[in-house]
Every structure is written in C-alpha cells, then in structure tokens.
C-alpha cells in the first residue's frame, strides 16, 4: 500500500476532531464466498428482501455483495477471489458533497461516512457518485407489513436499534454503527476506552473463515491495523483518492 494512503490521518487534511477511525480488512484469501456476512448483515440491520423479480433487476438490498469474476476459459478457468464489497466508508467520500440535504454526511468525530435515513429525500445522486456502487435504495416499501402481509410475523426479529427504512430512502453499510454506539456507551459507563475487538460488526462476527477484521485503524496496535499493514493490502479503486477505510488483502498465492 502506498505510504501516503495508509490511513486517513496521513492525508493532506486530517480531520481535526477525529477520535478514532473505524476500519476493516477483508482477507480475500480466506473469504470463501459463503454469504454468511450477507445474511448476518441483513438480519442485523433490518435489510429487507425484495423478491425474485426485483432482485433480478438489480434491486436486491443487501449491504454487502460478494463479487466474483472469471479468468480464462475452460478448462483453464479460475474464479477470481471472492470480493465482498460494502460501503468503504471513504475519508473523501464522493457521495457526501452531492447530497443536497446532508443526508449523506461525514462524521467528524469518527471519520465515518453516515447515511441519515430520515433526512434522505431520495435524489439518488450519492448512489450515482459512489464509485463502489455500495449504496442501495428502497425502491418500494419493502418493510411495510401493510403491503407485505408476510412481514407481520417476520418483523418480530427486526433489530430495534436500527431504523426501519421506508420507500424512497438510500441506505448502505454503516459499519454496524449501532454496535459502535453500544460499545461506546458501555465503555463510557465503565469509564474506559473501547478495547480492540470490542466492536464487531455483524459480518465479521459471522464470518466462518474470520476473513473480516474490524477495529480502529488509527491505532497501530489494533489487529486491524496490523492486518492492513501487509504487502497484500490494497484499497478498491485507489486511484480515485477516496481513501477508503476498508482494506482488501489480496487473495491467491
């Protein structure tokens, strides 16, 4: 990884008030594409299912998608290492300046990229401008039990810590901010700092291959910083200068 892009703190204009930057590494060598993270994320974050037709039309709403391409042709064909793509929580996020109502905003204190659901008016500009295509839109009222009677019972497992989104709202991976807040609150009540590994997003918690590591990337002692600081680490579309907080560790030999 180029030195100048190691962490947002190294960028030209570091956020003055950052109190700890959350970041993630994804080891593509370990990722088996099993989709446990996708399911875990959906269950944790009240992500709706959209049904077969909409899903096939590019409207599935999972916050993580696992990409795979093909290299070569039969019989010397290889699937590229599975690549889970979620919101990269860029330091210079292209989605933020384009929102006319500050629904896509930057968290000054944690250098996170936020989506304020209740502020969103649905112009979808942020999604267009996201080079990672990591944002998903509520094309319909997928979460309304009045329109989908099957949700009458299914809604029982919805997470009360996460807002239930309605139609016309953009959403994206939040790094499970409700868990970050919970951990912060616990740490504050015990009058201490958050420990490394105390915040685990749903995807990292589920991942059977332990391919996802999460933690504070501005602290070199954390597991995630150490994992990111290898020769295998790279960022998606690094050339755009978005300075993502997700580091991919190259797969393959």
């Amino acid at each position, binding site marked *: 990884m180029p030195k100048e892009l190691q962490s947002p703190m190294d960028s030209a204009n570091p956020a003055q008030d950052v109190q700890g930057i959350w970041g993630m590494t994804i080891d593509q060598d370990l990722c088996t594409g099993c989709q446990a993270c996708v399911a875990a994320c959906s269950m944790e974050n009240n992500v709706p299912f959209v049904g077969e037709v909409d899903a096939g039309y590019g409207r599935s709403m999972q916050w993580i998608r696992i990409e795979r391409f093909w290299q070569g042709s039969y019989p010397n064909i290889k699937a590229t290492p599975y690549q889970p793509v979620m919101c990269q929580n860029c330091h210079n996020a292209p989605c933020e300046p384009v929102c006319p109502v*500050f629904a896509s905003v930057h968290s000054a*204190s944690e250098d996170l990229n936020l989506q304020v659901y209740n502020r969103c008016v649905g112009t979808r500009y942020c999604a267009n401008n996201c080079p990672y295509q990591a944002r998903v839109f509520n094309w319909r009222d997928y979460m309304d039990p009045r329109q989908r009677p099957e949700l009458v019972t299914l809604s029982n497992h919805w997470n009360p810590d996460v807002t239930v989104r309605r139609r016309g709202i953009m959403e994206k991976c939040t790094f499970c901010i409700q868990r970050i807040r919970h951990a912060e*609150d616990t740490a504050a009540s015990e009058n201490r700092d958050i420990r490394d590994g105390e915040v685990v997003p749903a995807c990292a918690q589920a991942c059977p291959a332990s391919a996802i590591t999460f933690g504070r990337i501005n602290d070199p002692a954390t597991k995630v910083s150490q994992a990111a600081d290898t020769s295998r680490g790279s960022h998606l579309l690094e050339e755009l200068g978005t300075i993502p907080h997700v580091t991919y560790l190259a797969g393959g030999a």
Partner: protein
Amino acid sequence: MIKKFFNMLNQPLGRIGVFIVALVVLSGVVWGIAQAQKPPEQPIQFPHNLHVRLGIQCLYCHPGALRGPSPGIPTETKCWGCHRQIAIQGTELPKLAAYVKNNQPIDWVPVAQVPDFVHFVHRPHIAAGLNCEDCHGDVSNMTVYQNPQVINMGWCLNCHRAKTENNPQNNPTSDPAVAAKLEALRVKLTDCSTCHY
C-alpha cells in the same frame, strides 16, 4: 385593478370575509397543534404528583434510565408491590387491581417519545449530570405525564451545544485542556450518527 381589489376588501363585507378566512386558517392551525400536544388517553389516570410528593424517586419506577436507553414504564408487579398493602379505592386503583387479577399488561401509552429513527439513550444523559426534570419538567405538578416542551431536533441540539460551549459555566477556570475536551465532545454530540442510525 389591484387598487379595486383592495377597495373591495375595504368594504365591511370584504373585511368580514377576510376575517372569517383568517379565523378558519388560524383555528385549523391551533387545532392541529393542540391535537399534537394533547396527552394521550392512558389506561389509568396515574397521579404522578401524589407519588412524587410521597417521596418516591423517579428511578424507583423507571430504573432503566440508569443503565440503558429506555427508563421503562413500570409493570403491574411494581405497582402492586406497594398497592397490595393499600386500600383499593377511588376510580383508578380498582382498574389496577383488575389488571393484576386478570394478569393483563397495562397498556401505558408512552408520551415522552422520539420517532423511531432517533436512538435516544437515557444513560449518558443521567451520567452527564442531567436531572429528570431538566427534560421532563416538574412531574410533581402533573397527574398524567405531559411533555413540558416540544421534543424536536433543534431542542436536542441546543442543549448539546450549550453543554459543550467553552464558557465560564462549563469551563470556569478557562483551562485549555477542558476547552479541547469540550470541543471534542461538541463535535461528537452534534454528529448526525449520535442519534440517527
């Protein structure tokens, strides 16, 4: 032309018309606001004033405020803990007794509510030294609880800003370290994701 229109309005009938229109609009607005502020119908007309005057602490019935997001509305077990020893009289206590007898939950209607896209946690507010009455008003003068003010984002933010301002009240000694801390806290407390996620 426009002058003529104003002339028309200047005639008595025109004035009355304007007055009626204004009255209708105004009363509609007032009615709407009143509807929004009206305390909801509670299953039991719980007299907060009586209980507060008896010296019962807020946290006795709403203990969750100390530990987590929700202070909780007491279950009938809690009510019955005391009231089983007190004569069942008046209009409201028999209702409680009936709930207990039928093992039915009391359908309290929460009043101090924020919309579900706001994640309000009581604990840090108490830990920051706020008293219940700072937000909930003087409950000792209320029977059924009513919000003392409109709870909206501006109200929350004003307090968050006021409490983190570098002023003599928050920083009596003008200590730069405290000022820096206040500034950091201010950034944190005015961050959208502090409440919205």
